[in-house]
């Protein structure tokens, strides 16, 4: 089973995804893709850690190259948008290569896990008035989201903590 969860910032998509994951397995793996690159990132990571403390997750930090991650059972991948940014803005990254890496990575995890829940993000409903680098990231994320949604068994859009099943 592969479930994709999307939504805006602060929409409650993580909590929904965590609870969804725990329905499959009491001790799932949490794949954390956010790199603690500064104090703001560190605070966000801490907030997410505190929110899932005591829920039974084991944590694996993986900022790029998820396809070679040694996993099985049930896993929650948080999140696609961070992973894509890490792949894209790494020294060897490009939008095309990054999108391909993320898609292949998720495919590989789906092959190895009984259940995979992946969280992604909505970044594109506020126009295109951005720099070239940001636009190419938005384009790559839109592409990755559509490819993963096609592969997914279920897709949810979370808005103000309410999850709407869209597939």
């Amino acid at each position, binding site marked *: 089973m592969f479930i*994709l969860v*999307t939504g805006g910032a602060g929409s409650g998509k993580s909590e929904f995804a965590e609870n969804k994951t725990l329905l499959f397995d009491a001790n799932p793996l949490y794949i954390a893709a956010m790199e603690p690159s500064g104090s703001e990132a560190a605070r966000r990571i801490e907030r997410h850690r505190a929110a899932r403390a005591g829920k039974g997750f084991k944590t694996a930090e993986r900022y790029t190259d998820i396809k070679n991650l040694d996993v099985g059972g049930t896993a929650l991948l948080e999140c696609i948008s961070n992973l894509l940014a890490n792949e894209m803005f790494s020294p060897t990254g490009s939008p095309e290569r990054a999108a391909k890496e993320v898609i292949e990575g998720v495919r590989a995890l789906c092959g190895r896990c009984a259940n995979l829940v992946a969280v992604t993000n909505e970044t*594109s409903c506020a*126009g295109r008035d951005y720099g070239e680098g940001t636009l190419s990231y*938005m384009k790559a994320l839109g592409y990755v989201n*559509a*490819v993963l949604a096609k592969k997914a068994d279920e897709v949810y859009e979370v808005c103000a903590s309410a999850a709407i099943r*869209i*597939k």
Partner: protein
Amino acid sequence: MIFVLGGAYSGKSDYVREAFGVTDIAECGAPGSENARAVRNFHLYVRDVMRRGGDVEKCAEELIRSNPDVIIISDEIGCGIVPEDAFMREWRETAGRAHCFLAKRAKNVIRVVCGIGRVIK
């Protein structure tokens, strides 16, 4: 008329191609697009009409009148921070209103997220 709305790069054009079997999607407002089965970037057309001082609702009305079965695709641009630039603010607001105008007249309104279309009207 069918109205398809969604974020930039959310897979709207691919959705229209697959769901309606449309092969050619014209740019909204471009010469020769009057008889197209589907037109995209309606939000940019709104911007162009505004720039030349035209009436957006009248143009939208004419678009539907001359091509009643058209599929109109547009970007949702209203979900971010209020833009600093005055014209961008005006455009964002006008595009939102124009979307409501189309939605009221549309047989169906479809919102695309992650390449998935959901009929919201």
